[in-house]
């Protein structure tokens, strides 16, 4: 155990702020996952790959001389169609099946996407430069890359827009109705097939935005999607489905938790602690469920 993080106040502040900013970005990806999990009952293992593909769109814009931050507008549009195509080709065949089948199907999609990206974009690790600069706090002892702040702001804006869209628009209402009861929604004239396709598209579009943000904050290569899938899965498990504030809070807490685990236990235990926390929460959930008595009549 290394308690350096608590001995130097600037380090504590740095850890909390880094964690929160990281967590907000993960929350955006998790929100997409929660949405389509809630509506279609599908756990999307390919979530991380959708993010990385979105990131590559921003990277190619950067290569073409366009500032990669514009990717937050271009990437979601392209990724929406990618999402709809994936739905039409694969997901619609597994949507009302067992959850295990959907996990297998999306796992397959994830491998396919990794290999396609590797084939198309090469296996090099790439970065897109935003040149946004740095914010210095507390007499330069805490430094926050502006690209991370930009990512957090964009993620929050995205979440707000999506919440309003879900409440006010026709499609948003149809999505919520389908999530509550797909059969009833169908009887009342909701085209559930279209709703499913749009939901998967919206999820992919959110991943597109997140990908563009990842491209300017971290690094990209075809095989780096898994950590994004794992973390968004974790956030959704903690927050529960259809709970946007929950996703945001759980995302930020996970970010801070990870940072502190890194400082206290060492970087090598960072991902391990996330999994450990996942197990603890699942056990707690099980314990709570066991207390609630239910009888089959």
């Amino acid at each position: 155990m290394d308690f350096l993080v608590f001995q130097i106040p600037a380090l504590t502040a740095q850890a909390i702020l880094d964690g929160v900013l990281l967590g907000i970005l993960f929350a955006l990806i998790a929100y997409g996952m929660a949405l389509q999990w809630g509506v279609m009952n599908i756990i999307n293992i390919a979530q991380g790959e959708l993010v990385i593909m979105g990131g590559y769109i921003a990277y190619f814009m950067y290569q073409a001389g366009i500032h990669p931050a514009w990717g937050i507008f271009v990437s979601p549009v392209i990724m929406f169609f990618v999402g709809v195509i994936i739905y039409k080709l694969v997901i619609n065949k597994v949507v009302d099946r067992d959850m295990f089948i959907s996990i297998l199907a999306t796992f397959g999609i994830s491998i396919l996407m990794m290999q396609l990206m590797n084939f198309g974009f090469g296996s090099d690790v790439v970065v897109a430069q935003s040149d946004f600069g740095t914010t210095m706090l507390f007499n330069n002892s805490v430094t926050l890359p502006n690209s991370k702040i930009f990512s957090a702001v964009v993620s929050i804006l995205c979440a707000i827009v999506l919440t309003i869209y879900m409440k006010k628009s026709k499609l948003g209402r149809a999505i919520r109705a389908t999530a509550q009861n797909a059969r009833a929604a169908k009887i009342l004239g909701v085209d559930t097939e279209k709703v499913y396709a749009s939901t998967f598209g919206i999820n992919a579009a959110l991943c597109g935005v997140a990908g563009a943000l990842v491209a300017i904050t971290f690094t990209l290569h075809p095989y780096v999607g898994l950590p994004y899938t794992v973390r968004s899965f974790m956030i959704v498990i903690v927050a529960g489905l259809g709970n946007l504030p929950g996703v945001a809070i759980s995302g930020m807490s996970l970010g801070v938790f990870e940072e502190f685990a890194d400082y206290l236990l060492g970087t090598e235990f960072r991902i391990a602690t996330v999994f450990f926390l996942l197990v603890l929460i699942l056990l707690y959930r099980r314990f709570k469920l066991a207390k609630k008595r239910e009888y089959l009549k």
Partner: protein
Amino acid sequence: MKKLYRSILSFVSVLALVFSFGTANAKVEGDTIVLGAAVSLTGKYSTNGEHTKNGYDLAVKRINDMGGVKVGGKSYKFKVIYYDDESNSKRAAQLAERLIKQDGVKYMLGPYSSGLTKAIAPVTEENKVPMVEANGASRSLFTKGYKYLFAVLSPANQYLEVAIDLAVEKNGGKPVRIAQAFEQDAFSQDVRIGVMEAAERTKSKIVIDDKLPKELNDMAATLAKVKAVKPDVLVVSGHSKGALTAIRQISEMKVDVPMLAMTHCDASKLAAQHGDKSEFALCASQWHKTLTYKDKFFGDGMKYDADFTKAYGYAPPYQAAESSAALLVYKDAFERANSFDTKKVRDALAKTEMQTFYGNIKFGSGGQNTAKPMVLFQVMCKSGKCENVVVAPTKWAAAELIHPIPPWSKR
């Protein structure tokens, strides 16, 4: 029934005949010496796999054009059978079996990466097939007592030792405080062993010792600690991803450290991707085009650089140069053995002592190259254009090391 039995028997014997011809002829077909290699043409190592293959191909063409290999007074040409190992070690081992057992290959070239070389080495060893490899630097390859494995490159633990010595030298011979972050993979952990040994030798102190998980793309916590602890030297090794992440976050978090030493700068195209943000970074390299080693096939490093660029359209990273050197080693060994007997070729390989454009080559008892030091280059930028300039060891230095790195407030 008898007829059926007879036809099966004749079918099997024809098959056996075909196979026996296959193995007898495959090692040397007419005037061609057939080498086998499993390289990563797809999967996560595909870029470096391609550099490896291009390096092999360029040397094969050059040797063949310049008269080939002379054995027993006759001239032979090289030919390489390639298979794609998909960057997967299990697949690489299967393909090595296939090359040896089905294709009858008697001489192997190495794959890309320490991991895949580790998977193939037991297969070549068991079949007593010599393998000259150019892209597996992990120290554990050379401590297993393999007799048929020869590596033209320096082992991984030597990568950043030079940097620690340099830091101590710049500190007036006094011990330094080292912060280190290494990925948890065979190669980077070997690099770490080298740094630890250098630290012990110079009585330097390790103040931060982080192990980066393979999935990690965020080093903010490590760098925040570096800012707080203020070490004399920061050492990072985590393949291309580690190098790119480190430079991105060091520049964004404005981390000031007098010396920054890394691996994989040229594989990650660090200077091209990060521009002047990567300036002053010290990078360990197996080879650099400005080194003045010479041979009669490629001339020197600069000529190799020009020839490779002409043939493939990009400047050769050291992964390509060392792969080309592997072929030069084979040619030399075949001619000295003056035979195609694998045992004799192996013995000739073990006695190799030569200079190539890539460096001096002499194999130690474990098969590692003991004659070639690692070089350190520093990224230096002039009006937006960044270059890798060799600064250590002093013998090869093309410029003076810039030390300490100026603080971010003055850059």
